[in-house]
């Protein structure tokens, strides 16, 4: 039978050969991702409107300050649930591997376009892993501190001095999450051919060969014997 998966997730497979198309994310994973993304965007906009007075007008997008205050933590919980499902699907392939160190040290070559000088990678590179673990940690911090400052349902869960720290940490963690969000979106756009992995679910063979060769190799080796010829 097919060899054990090391670099790929269940569902990843070669979908077509001429030209090569590689399945990267199943439909359910993509749905999961976009629910998370939508929550993130709502949270960023509503959170920013509380973060700085000059942005308070954005509460109008949700029907005013009161509604925004009510909505923000609820959407936060939806995001946590949704992200948790993504986490379960992705954590294993995001564990650090030896090649990540070399890749990180040579990240300049990648930015210059000399990706050939970098080691071959599995499904995720060190940058993607940084985004994954960074977001996981920050979301954990955000939900913890968020509950501490959730006036409507948990007004007395922590003392006021703790609440002061929680509200400041919440703002800082949110800022961190925004920076990672920017890196994530930017990398997906700058690395052409990436976004279709989350829209159509597949990437081209060239994309897989260029960026995630070990992943492609493993999937190529796992193909069922070709019966079409």
């Amino acid at each position, binding site marked *: 039978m097919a060899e054990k998966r090391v670099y790929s997730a269940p569902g990843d497979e070669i979908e077509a*050969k001429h030209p090569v198309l590689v399945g990267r994310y199943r439909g359910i994973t993509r749905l999961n991702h976009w629910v998370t993304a939508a929550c993130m965007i709502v949270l960023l906009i509503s959170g920013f409107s509380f973060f700085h007075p000059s942005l308070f007008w954005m509460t109008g997008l949700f029907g005013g300050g009161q509604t925004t205050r009510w909505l923000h933590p609820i959407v936060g919980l939806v995001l946590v649930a949704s992200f948790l499902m993504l986490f379960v699907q992705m954590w294993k392939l995001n564990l650090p591997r030896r090649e990540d160190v070399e890749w990180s040290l040579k990240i300049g070559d990648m930015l210059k376009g000399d990706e050939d000088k970098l080691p071959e990678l599995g499904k995720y590179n060190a940058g993607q892993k940084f985004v994954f673990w960074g977001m996981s940690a920050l979301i954990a911090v955000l939900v913890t501190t968020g509950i501490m400052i959730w006036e409507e349902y948990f007004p007395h869960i922590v003392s006021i001095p703790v609440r002061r720290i929680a509200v400041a940490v919440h703002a800082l963690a949110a800022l961190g999450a925004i920076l990672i969000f920017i890196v994530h979106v930017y990398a997906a756009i700058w690395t052409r051919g990436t976004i279709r992995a989350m829209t159509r679910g597949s990437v081209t063979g060239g994309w897989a060969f260029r960026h995630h060769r070990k992943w492609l190799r493993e999937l190529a080796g796992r193909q069922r014997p070709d019966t079409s010829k």
Partner: protein
Amino acid sequence: MSERAPEPVTAAANPPIQPLPSNLLASDVIRASATAELPAPERQLTQVAKLIDVSKCIGCKACQSACIEWNDTHPDVEENVGVYENPHDLTPDMFTLMRFTEYENPKTNELEWLIRKDGCMHCADPGCLKACPAPGAIVQYSNGIVDFISDNCIGCGYCVTGCPFNIPRVSKTAHVSKKCTLCSDRVAVGQGPACAKACPTKAISFGTKESMIELAEERVEDLKSRGYDNAGLYDPQGVGGTHVMYVLHHADQPSLYAGLPDDPQISPVVRGWKGPAKTVGLAVAGLAAAGALLHGLFARANEVTPHDDEEAENLVDGAGHRGREA
């Protein structure tokens, strides 16, 4: 009707009975939450203050009743759990609360019953106003009154986080924050606060801040002559002074009085969060987004080459052949 109400200088006298237009105007607001620039006020109102002489208080709670009456609030009837406080704490419907402390004075070996009327202190530097994210939900008038404008309040509870005295309470039904207004609506028409008017022992006085400090000095002198060597005025400078002040017999230990803060000030955490963090945070996020946009527009993208596609086909085909042979 053209003449505005006079600024009140006492709660003791009866107010004018003819209807007079409010003398507390929107233009008298000198600070508003989440609002950077306010038009310069046209006039400076006389600074007012409430002086609570703890040594005169008999704990009758008339001030609480007057407060409920005037503000038309309806505190819940609670269970008696064997304490003097009623209700158990400040609530969105109880803006002021007598707090009782039984203190055994180690010097005299006497039991002292310390009763303090708790409520908003109307800080000159209000932590609630600093913390509030909703423009105009908390305002400060030039006479020193700090007021919550419920129409602008979003009920987030940041004022609770900002207040050094643990005063604001957010309503579970209206979802707005509530606290003592220093009877701004009475002061606006020349009257003193309801609690001061109701107090049977004149433990609560109201007037200009200056006259209240003078009155406090008299009282402190009197208390000192009666053996309270540490009597003094509580007008904490850590929050820029307050417009509700206490005369305390033990001014060296304010915390004896049901945890009145010894040296209240806006927490440095709140200052950091509401100060540099805002500007720097916004700048960092903005720069990162702008940087990404510029790099995206002007830098060469990371594109897949035809060579990559070829290699992929070879790899997939090659592996396929191997798979068949195996």
